[in-house]
């Protein structure tokens, strides 16, 4: 017991080592939050392009607009294929050592990598949600004179979000945990914070369990919050 107490003191109190954990937690949250927002933005744009393409029906004419849509659709498909087909760690290393090598900020590199990565997954989630909305909804919106984009924003996407919410929450949880690989580019996020303590004090047990518990609590928190949101939404179903 005294052994454990001594370890605790050397792991967290001496030299204010607890700061590795709190500082790391801040970075983890920051990267996750920014990547979530940007990823959703990217995912939404890709989903709309791909749905606009797929729902266009038969190709009527070789207009410029149609060609442009074909082009963007092809780009989006390629993007999703590449991102989903390669490990996120490899993407992070490529971004850090090749593409964004001139960037000084590791946080920026991490945020961009994870935004681009989760954008690909989120786009598929949104796309599924949009496709699941009854096509009569688009027709009703359009027949009232609303444009495609107006109908999307006001009518289709709110309904799509509702059905996509559980999958989006899963993606958020995956994203939060995946940011733990940022140690590979030397970013001091939560996992690396714990690992630095381990390397300094040579005690693995306490710092690594603490880190694990913090992740677990965050995931439980996210699950609880969105569980409530979902229940709210279901209540407004009025069935």
């Amino acid at each position, binding site marked *: 017991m005294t052994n454990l107490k001594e370890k605790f003191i050397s792991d967290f109190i001496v030299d204010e080592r607890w700061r590795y954990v709190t500082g790391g937690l801040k970075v983890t949250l920051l990267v996750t939050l920014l990547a979530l927002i940007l990823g959703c933005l990217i995912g939404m744009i890709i989903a709309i392009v791909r749905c606009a393409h797929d729902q266009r029906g038969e190709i009527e004419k070789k207009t410029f607009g149609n060609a442009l849509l074909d082009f963007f659709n092809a780009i989006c498909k390629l993007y999703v294929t590449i991102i989903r087909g390669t490990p996120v760690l490899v993407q992070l290393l490529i971004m850090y050592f090749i593409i964004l090598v001139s960037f000084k900020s590791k946080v920026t590199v991490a945020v961009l990598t994870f935004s681009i990565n989760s954008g690909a997954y989120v786009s598929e989630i949104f796309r599924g949600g949009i496709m699941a909305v009854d096509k009569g909804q688009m*027709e009703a919106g359009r027949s009232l004179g609303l444009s495609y984009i107006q109908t999307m924003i006001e009518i289709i996407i709110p309904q799509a979000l509702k059905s996509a919410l559980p999958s989006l929450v899963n993606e958020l949880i995956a994203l939060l945990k995946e940011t733990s690989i940022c140690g590979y580019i030397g970013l001091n996020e939560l996992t690396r914070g714990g690992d630095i303590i381990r390397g300094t004090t040579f005690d693995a047990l306490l710092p690594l369990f603490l880190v694990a518990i913090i992740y677990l609590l965050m995931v439980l928190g996210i699950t609880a919050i969105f569980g409530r949101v979902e229940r709210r939404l279901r209540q407004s179903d009025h069935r």
Partner: protein
Amino acid sequence: MITVNHLSKAFGDHLVLDDLSEHIEKGEKVVIIGPSGSGKSTFLRCMNLLEKPTAGQIIFDGQDITSKDADINKIRMQMGMVFQHFNLFPHLSITRNMTLAPVKLGVLSKDEAEEKAKKLLDRVGLLEKADSYPDQLSGGQKQRIAIVRSLMMNPKMMLFDEPTSALDPEMVGEVLEVMKELASDGMTMAVVTHEMGFAREVANRVLFVDGGKVLESGTPDQVFGNPQNERTKEFLSKVL
């Protein structure tokens, strides 16, 4: 009001509308009948360009709406459409269902739109449903809401695609009642329906469509009482 010239529509190599020409006068009520798969819905949906015609021309209110530079959204604002499955927006209250388009499109202010929605709801006896959601309504109520939702835009013409086909029999009457009232107010209407009683009572003209062509056109008395075309006779003998 609307003139259709040599309209053709193909899905792939399946020709659904075959060189169809028709004219609907202002204030006219035209009922379209015909067997399943004959192209009635496609004809209706071509009129507001929910389906893009493969060939032909549609002139609505003096404007060629099939021409390249026609503003589809502007045109649709003047042409209401009522669907078999209502297509109310389930995430919006009844009032929001009605006010969304006119407010977003800048036709009415929010206050004006809400005022107008109230009046229309009152007219169809559903004022107390203003704050309800579509899932809380019966089929007949939903369809009446769908009709007044279209009316919010002050359309010059209304298209109905089997508005009562998805309803329980006891709810058909209340929807037809609203449509009859609309007809007597002078609305130009094109109605695809199997309600022959409604056709007899309200229609100025009945079109029998089969194989993507109008095979017979005349007053309800002519078409129902004395059909000329063999296929019309055959169809009517099944449904009457």
